[in-house]
């Protein structure tokens, strides 16, 4: 296995994707909605989740059941499993990738998986090990008949971006021809109560990078990005480089100097052979907490990218945790294909100390080389660079 590493790395292509959120069940539905400036964040009144109303972006349950009924599969699946299965199924459509092949790998990105099964009213539905993340990986891989041990990554809010970085590495070294990166998380009592105790939820829809931003909004969703060693006819987007780093500062508060994010971006740039000057666009993490957005602006500034257009999709979908890095990368790829910069929903007035260029209006721009950023609890940060080939 190791001798393969020395082999010249081949190009890694983004060949398909899917996004399932409050705004739609495909990438194009989501793109259209965001282009129209829509936000799926609403005030949720569900005492089973939290005693008081709270804003969140939820996947429509009726639509989820309808869509799942269309693929009419036997067996019992949880809400999250249905979302993940639908997401992978849609991404695989019209694609000549054999998911049953041992040359196709699966990486699952999630923070809490089926944690809703801990709730007493769901006890009957619960097989003891269904709550465990490795089992979720097995259920998804098993559904599609993939013969490989699924790789499950749980690294807080950077899981999605890191999963794509790892997938690219596995293809680059020749371990797989294709890798299906899928990820998701749902809005549960477990997670909402935790974020409430952190007092990090905004009372209204979140406002990334805005002067009056006051916290994040939670969201749920699933996403899939399929990477492969062969491009498609026409224009392709390839993976250029990735990196991760730790702030080594605090387990919940981001670094005041943006250290980990700065290192992760630098590492991705180095692998990609680019600098901040080459970036046409940045898809930031942009949670809309005071400290995260400030920290990201500092990291962007330290790489001399103040003039590079930047947005966050948290104002549209909320923070979808384990799905975030995947759905946001998929939307970045769509912007590149369409050569469009999407407005950063919720942003009105600059509110970070570094004068970064937050996209205040959807507009056309030729996009060749772009950066995705992510940061999370545990002081963890990741970045990846993609480019048109």
């Amino acid at each position, binding site marked *: 296995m190791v001798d393969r590493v020395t082999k010249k790395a081949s190009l890694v292509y983004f060949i398909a994707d899917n996004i399932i959120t409050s705004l739609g069940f495909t990438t194009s539905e989501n793109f259209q909605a965001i282009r129209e400036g829509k936000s799926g964040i609403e005030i949720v009144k569900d005492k089973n989740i939290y005693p008081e109303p709270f804003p969140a972006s939820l996947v429509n349950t009726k639509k989820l059941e309808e869509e799942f009924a269309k693929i009419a599969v036997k067996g019992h699946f949880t809400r999250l499993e249905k979302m993940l299965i639908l997401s992978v199924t849609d991404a695989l459509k019209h694609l000549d990738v054999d998911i049953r092949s041992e040359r196709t790998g699966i990486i699952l990105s999630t923070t809490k998986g089926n944690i809703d099964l801990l709730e007493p009213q769901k006890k009957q539905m619960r097989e003891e090990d269904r709550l465990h993340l490795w089992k979720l990986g097995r259920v998804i891989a098993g559904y599609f008949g993939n013969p490989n041990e699924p790789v499950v990554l749980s690294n807080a809010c950077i899981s999605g971006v890191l999963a794509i970085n790892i997938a690219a590495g596995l293809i680059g070294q020749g371990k797989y021809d294709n890798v299906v990166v899928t990820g998701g998380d749902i809005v549960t009592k477990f997670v909402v109560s935790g974020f409430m*105790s*952190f*007092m990090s939820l905004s009372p209204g829809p979140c406002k990334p990078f805005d002067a009056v931003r006051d916290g994040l909004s939670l969201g749920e969703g699933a996403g899939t990005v399929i990477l492969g060693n062969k491009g498609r006819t026409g224009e392709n987007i390839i993976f250029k480089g990735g990196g991760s780093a730790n702030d080594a500062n*605090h*387990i*919940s*508060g981001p670094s005041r100097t943006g250290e980990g994010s700065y290192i992760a971006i630098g590492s991705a740039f180095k692998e990609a052979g680019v600098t901040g000057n080459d970036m046409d666009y940045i898809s930031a993490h942009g949670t809309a907490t005071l400290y995260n957005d400030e920290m990201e602006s500092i990291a962007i500034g330290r790489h001399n990218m103040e003039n590079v257009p930047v947005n966050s999709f948290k104002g549209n979908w909320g923070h979808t945790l384990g799905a975030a890095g995947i759905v946001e990368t998929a939307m970045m790829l769509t912007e590149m294909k369409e050569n469009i910069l999407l407005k950063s929903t919720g942003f009105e007035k600059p509110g970070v100390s570094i004068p970064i260029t937050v996209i205040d209006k959807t507009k056309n721009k030729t996009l060749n080389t772009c950066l995705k950023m992510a940061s999370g609890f545990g002081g963890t940060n990741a970045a990846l660079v993609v480019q048109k080939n």
Partner: protein
Amino acid sequence: MEELIEQLKQQIIEQLNLEDLEPEDIDPEEPLFGNGLGLDSIDALELIVLLEKQYGIKIENPKDGQKIFFSVKSMAEFITEHKK
């Protein structure tokens, strides 16, 4: 007040897992954060939970915590003022 201060010291040690401290190690007028006991932002949030759980006092804005949680004494004064 004296009694409340002693009770608070014990509750703080328990809630914040300050296992290597004894109540008598805490000076009620010494700052809890910064150079004092070296507490951090998660501890501040835990103290908010402590006030709600033990004394039924709810703090909506974490920024208010800075004054209230300056020291054990300031906490005790706040509780005395606001206890239902």
